[in-house]
């Protein structure tokens, strides 16, 4: 059979496409849930309208996004069984447990309380309503924890034994699976990256609104009433976004560094592949740019920084890092076969690793610059300080504002880098999953042995085409909707519920003198504040 259309190849494409697609929505969902919860909390505590409008605005974008996240997630759960049934049989005893926990502990939280949050604005007391979105946020974090524990087990299997009679992996220590260092570091890295993603999204959209308003002012035009009213919410959002971007960006860098060391210990091949380091070297350099040739086993062009790879792996600049050839030979000796069988796609891993770091750290840097230039008071002459409803001047030093050209480009970069972390996330996953190949479960099960034996080429091709077509259409629909609502900005005409709704038991409603009954009658025909 033509290898390009072999069921295994098609199933891998499908898994890759559906997973990367799903993970466009996941990090935004995680971060926007928590940030929206934070904004609603600010509203409940201060009563300020700008927080209410910001909550509603980001909440709306969050909902457009989570809808896609939820439905594409079902595919993820089903396709282990559909396309990777031999994998499922082999690992189910270990891998299924975190998945079941995820459903019971996380998915019910998310789905139930999101319904209460969407429809509950006029039904629930403010504080309980706010608690609902916090529970959703906790649900998203729990969900990521369990699924990453499952994935970490594929990267570095622990707490199991292979049953002699059945040849299957059997769970022996759930605690080891849930708390091994791979899981902990990956959770840290993924969550910080998720928050960087949401932060860049918020910074981008806020910058769009603020810069649009600023441009209008620069042209000497007056802002419309609505646009003026939107400024406080957008300004607050920008600051929140920038603070989160800096904290999350720093966290992503720190956790990424730790993850590199864990990876080097547990999957030396992935580290060597990330660097296209063919020969073992001491000290090992960090390659900035390389063009390699797998068949020849060396790189033809290369720019390197000496010693940095040694540092990434060992925290010193001199120690040796094993290369691809030595690592592959070692694996072949251990598991049989030829050394080439154990070399992942160097092109994808090398460039995936670079694009991940490049796009992620650019966002972090943009956040850092933005946080500094839009600061409110710190090291800022009083005449340059701006109020709550004014667009900040971008201040370089105490008395020096950025020139018109740099100002323009600062705002533009804020807008243009909006999607950078999404690109970084995608390449991060592509890198870590392709870097593990040929293994599905590292050292235990090869991807080629994991596919469903009963599912033929025609079936996988059908599902692959169906998913690609459907996901492409939905992507267009989703992006258009997001753009529409993002451009419109917060709906400043919307008022918070006049009085705090109370949770009430159904009243008897019999006596005419009963004020509760009169009130209930008055409310009986009131339209819902939100309806599908």
């Amino acid at each position: 059979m033509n290898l390009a259309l072999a069921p295994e190849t098609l199933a891998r494409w499908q898994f890759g496409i559906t997973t990367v697609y799903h993970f466009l929505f996941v990090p935004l969902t995680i971060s926007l849930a928590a940030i929206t919860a934070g904004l609603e909390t600010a509203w409940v505590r201060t009563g300020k309208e700008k927080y209410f409008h910001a909550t509603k605005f980001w909440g709306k974008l969050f909902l457009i996004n989570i809808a896609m996240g939820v439905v594409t997630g079902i595919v993820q759960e089903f396709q282990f069984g559909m396309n990777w049934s031999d994998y499922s049989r082999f690992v189910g005893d270990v891998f299924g447990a975190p998945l079941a926990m995820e459903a019971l502990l996380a998915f019910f939280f998310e789905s139930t309380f999101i319904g209460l949050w969407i429809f509950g604005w006029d039904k629930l007391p403010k504080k309980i309503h706010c608690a609902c979105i916090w529970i959703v946020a906790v649900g998203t974090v729990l969900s990521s924890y369990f699924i990453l524990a499952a994935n970490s087990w594929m990267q570095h299997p622990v707490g199991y034994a292979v049953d002699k009679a059945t040849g299957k992996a059997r769970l022996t220590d759930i605690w080891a699976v849930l708390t091994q260092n791979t899981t902990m570091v990956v959770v840290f890295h993924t969550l910080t990256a998720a928050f960087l993603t949401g932060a860049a999204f918020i910074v981008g959209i806020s910058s769009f609104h603020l810069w649009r308003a600023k441009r209008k002012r620069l042209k000497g035009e007056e802002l419309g009433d609505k646009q003026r009213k939107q400024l406080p919410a957008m300004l607050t959002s920008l600051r929140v976004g920038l603070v989160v971007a800096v904290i999350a960006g720093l966290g992503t860098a720190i956790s990424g560094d730790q993850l590199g060391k864990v990876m080097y210990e547990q999957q030396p091949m992935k580290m060597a592949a990330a660097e296209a380091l063919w020969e073992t070297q001491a000290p090992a350099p960090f390659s900035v740019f390389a063009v390699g040739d797998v068949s020849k086993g060396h790189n033809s062009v290369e720019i390197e920084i000496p010693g940095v790879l040694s540092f990434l792996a060992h925290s010193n600049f001199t120690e040796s890092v094993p290369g691809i050839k030595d690592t592959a030979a070692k694996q072949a000796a251990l598991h049989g076969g030829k050394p080439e069988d154990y070399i992942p796609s160097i092109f994808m891993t090398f460039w995936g690793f670079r694009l991940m770091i490049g796009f992620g750290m650019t966002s972090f840097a943009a956040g850092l610059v933005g946080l500094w230039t839009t600061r409110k008071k710190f090291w800022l002459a009083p005449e340059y300080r701006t109020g709550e409803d004014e667009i900040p001047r971008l201040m370089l030093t105490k008395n020096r504002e950025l020139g018109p050209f740099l100002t323009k480009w600062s705002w533009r970069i804020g807008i243009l880098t909006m999607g950078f972390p999404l690109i970084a996330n995608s390449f991060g996953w592509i890198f870590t999953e392709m870097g593990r190949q040929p293994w599905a479960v590292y050292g235990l099960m090869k991807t080629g042995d994991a596919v469903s034996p009963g599912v033929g080429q025609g079936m996988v091709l059908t599902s692959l085409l169906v998913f690609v077509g459907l996901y492409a259409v939905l992507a267009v629909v989703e992006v258009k909707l997001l753009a529409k609502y993002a451009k419109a900005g917060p709906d400043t005409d919307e008022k918070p519920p006049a009085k705090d709704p109370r949770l009430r038991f159904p009243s008897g409603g019999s006596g005419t003198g009963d004020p509760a009954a009169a009130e209930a009658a008055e409310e009986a025909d009131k339209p819902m504040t939100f309806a599908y």
Partner: protein
Amino acid sequence: MHLHDFWFLLIAVLWIGYFFLEGFDFGIGVLTKALARDRAERRVLINTIGPVWDANEVWLITAAGATFAAFPDWYATLFSGFYLPLLAVLVCLIVRGVAFEYRHKRTGERWQRNWEHAIFWCSLIPAFLWGVAFANMVRGVPIGPDKNYTGGLLDLLSPYALLGGLLTLVLFTFHGALFAALKTVGDIRHRARAFAGVSGLAAGVLAVAFLAWTQAESGNGRSLPALVVAVVALAAALVANRRGREGWAFALSGLTVVAAFAMIFLALFPDVMPSSTDARWSLTVTNAASSPYTLKIISWVAGFMTPVVMAYQAWTYWVFRKRIGTQHIPAAH
């Protein structure tokens, strides 16, 4: 009771819970075309399940996840064997979920109409296909010695399986009509009751035919009482509906769904997926199960969490207990 028996029970509970809850969601979806006369009425129907459909669907995800954890072979054989029907279910659940969330986000006529078509078809198709899948599961499908499904797509579309699909479709529509009668006010409420009367009769005929066929082919002493309960509950639901006891009628149609699927699981036990090729190759609660250690761990989690989940989900229904009618639907925005 062995742990794997307990997990068979729990998975049965999860699937039955799923069909009870998403059963009426699917029914509501079908009624958006079968019952609603205009957009306002369609929106009334959609909003009766608006706050809850997502959590209802998580019962499916939990059932699948629990099957993966407790009976990996059952999960592997079922999902790879029923590949194309499950693909259709997945596509429908994707489009339907997005449709609920996106339909009202634009005002254009074509936009709204397209999503409304999506809600109808993507409710109808899974409602039918789940019946096909469960009919095949209880009757047995070709399974080889390596536990893999060896049949093709046509093997899954026997008259018996199609009858099962028709039953779930009509039964869920009936269940949904009673839910609509319970949750709405005004004209649509009365028409929902009338519609329930008709669809209930059809569901009754199909239920007797399919469940009796199942009992004759795969049934046993345990499954017979469930069959009786299902049929009696359905008849009682019709009576309650005629007398205008909407709460009772809905509870009884729910009991019908519960009893009908309980019957299937009782007929199945101790197999989980019988092989029609050779009984020795059937998947059973013992040969498909995870190790006792894994079962023990997830038993603790499920034992604690299932009641908690049910409690807060029930609370949601209480919060949104108010009936809605066209007057409650805000203008499109």
